[in-house]
């Protein structure tokens, strides 16, 4: 069992050390393979699967993950300002609606069956399964691939 807790600075603590949880496969397998690394990047613990943890610890880890990572998943493309980059995308993500600027079609990268879209400020958005989007989104997305 892991001795996890949260300190007054809001950081996850394992034993005595402040740790940060890092997903090993954030795109292809986010739920499995989570490493707890200390501030020097040294791995202190490996969680094969989040479900293996007790409820309380799992919550702590999930909270810390959320505070650290940011990879909004695009659920729907509402509109694009043009059908070719550079252009602005309006999207609905699991983190709410937003808009961002796409500089070039090269910023859409395929990672196994998913797409990662990087905006002009370096923020990445995930499209987990392009084929599973609705027709409208697929049509918009189609002209960039």
């Amino acid at each position, binding site marked *: 069992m892991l001795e996890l807790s949260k300190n007054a*600075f809001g950081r996850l603590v394992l034993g005595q050390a402040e740790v940060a949880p890092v997903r090993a496969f954030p795109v292809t397998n986010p739920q499995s393979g989570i490493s707890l690394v200390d501030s020097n990047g040294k791995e202190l613990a490996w969680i094969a699967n989040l479900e293996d943890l007790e409820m309380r610890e799992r919550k702590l880890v999930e909270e810390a993950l959320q505070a650290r990572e*940011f990879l909004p998943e695009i659920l729907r493309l509402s509109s694009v300002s043009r059908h*070719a980059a550079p252009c602005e995308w309006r999207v609905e993500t699991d983190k*709410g609606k937003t808009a961002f600027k796409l500089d*070039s079609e*090269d910023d859409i990268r395929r990672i196994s069956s998913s797409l990662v879209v*990087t905006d*002009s*400020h370096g923020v*990445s958005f995930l499209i987990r399964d392009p084929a599973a989007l609705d027709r409208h989104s697929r049509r918009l997305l189609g002209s960039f691939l």
Partner: protein
Amino acid sequence: MMPVSKWRQVLAVPLGAILHGMNSLPESLRDMLRPGEEALAHLEPDLDENSRFANSHLLLTDQRLLCRGHDGSLGEWPRRDGLVLERFDHAGTGHLELKDETSLIASWRYTLGRDQAARELVMRFRGNEPESAQTDEQASIPVSPRALLRLWRFARPYRGKLLSGFLLSLASTAAAMIPPYLTMPLMDDVLIPFQNGKAIDIPLVERYLGGLFAAALIAWALGWARTYILARVSERIGADLRIATYRHLHGLSLEYFGGKRTGDLVARIGSETDRINVFLSLHLLDFATDLLMIGMTAAVLLSINPMLALVTLLPLPFIVWMIHAVRDKLRHGFEQADRVWSEITNVLTDTIPGIRVVKAFAQEEREVKRFVDANAHNLAVNDRVNTVWSLFAPSVTLLTEIGLLVVWIFGIWQVSTSKITVGVLTAFLAYITRFYSRLDSMSRIVSVTQKAAAGAKRIFEILDQSSSVPEASKPVHPGRVEGSIEAKDIEFRYGSRAILHGVDLSISPGEMIGLVGQSGSGKSTLINLICRFYDPARGAILVDGRDIRSYPIEEYRQNIGLVLQEPFLFFGTIAENIAYGKPDASMEEIVSAARAAHAHEFILRLPFGYDSLVGERGQTLSGGERQRISIARAILIDPRILILDEATSSVDTETEREIQGALDNLVSGRTTIAIAHRLSTLRRADRLVVMEKGRIVEIGRHDDLLEAKGVYYRLHEAQQVKENA
């Protein structure tokens, strides 16, 4: 705390400017300001505590930090000693944390687009004037949708030739207009009278037939001249375009290449320039002549019989409408097709250099499959465009056929009522076939135009890219530098990932620095900055007391000898590779550089000595041999600053000792920065600089550092253990 750097001009932001930027400040927050309270900085964090997109407001005043949450909740924190505001970023988001000695008080999160405002807020909080905004924000590239018009720049130098080509094609088409005109009298004055029992007027027939033949000859000669001229122009425009793009590419920084795949660039410069030049010199002119021809034909038709002419022009509006409807679809389709084509090239440029790995792991089948997949994608995209296109062309043909039918019907009726002669109708039909074939070819230009537009966009994507290491506007010529290097508070990031955090280092001329630290600690990155492959996000590097950004890049780099971690050899002889930085080097110079690098003897063992060809990646040489050649390359240019990034990592200890001896001679009198994992290599260093996670953690001599029992001590111990084991 970050010291205000005095060497950079600091810009005080007038209060008015801040308040001006605070127009978006919600009333409730503005109302909280007490009389006399001065607003200092404002930030709109755009993520809430669950990292969902939601705008809140953060306002710093001279007394307090005020916050209005996305849900309208208000918060305030009076400023006091012990309260710190920290900023850090991770994976595209920035974090602000307000804390005191014991705990976290509040935190905010934002996407990196707002980082500049956040940094300003933090600086203000710490009581410092914010630094003048650096060119951190990449100027967005305005890619005009009118990329085709911008191509004129490349056609301009040839406008004389293009004009003559245009006139020639005009003349040749005009010549081609004569035969149908002659059919009219042939019909009406010769054939029909003959049918009605009149004898054929032989001299008249001869004259008409002679005219037909002459017209054909003239059309042939003009057409030949036109094709010849335009083909030449086309090739030249293509070459210009390719060279301009390639030259521009060389002016771009490593950052650009880091984000591109070779195959993509190869495809853009190779095939797309070709398509564009054909468009510019052939299709565009054809289009212009077609347009004129259609006008001329229409005029001729109108002059013969206005009624009949109007009927003939009936399908024209439909065709124009159709062109308009499919244009955008086609362009996007072709653009997509180009991208997919790049993908195919990418598979090739990926696997061919890596062929040894492919074979070693027996993954030929999988690579073939990758290629098959890319091709399947290509087919799918092209099928989609072709569906549109294949429907378009026959539709135009259908419309013209219908037009022809209408003319027949109308013509027969007119002949039957004796309004026109058979000759007029025949001439009309002859003209109209030409007219419609022109229309047909004109509609075809829709596809070539859109193809060229797609290509032009991709070319201008390169041409519009400005280097992220720009040349100074008023450069100072460095000449041969003394060699003092000073890094001031350097910060650097690759994309959104911060690599160097506040590196300060000062190196005197002629000093040898050993740079050590764990793998990934940022040693090579620091060197990349010193070579100006990249510019730091913050801070500056001074050589001879001047910001290196004020030197012309080429002149500056001539002072630097660089031996890279991964030596690269160009295709050519070994001598050429050694003399790469100084192509006019004499044979003696090359040999002595090779001797100094301890490469001489192994080179002599090769069948052709210094004239041996080394393959694309120096395939025929071993890792250590390649490294020694790249050392010789650096030695030859006799640089003031020598940078050795793991220069001896792939040679055995014996050879390393030899090279070390050579380097010792080389190092004296030059500023040297040597990176090495084997610490023993750095014994001669005047000072050792220890890096850890993007920071310099220790500086000092070997013995002192050992005594300090810090990071260096641990690195050293670890190696002792390994060596003794």
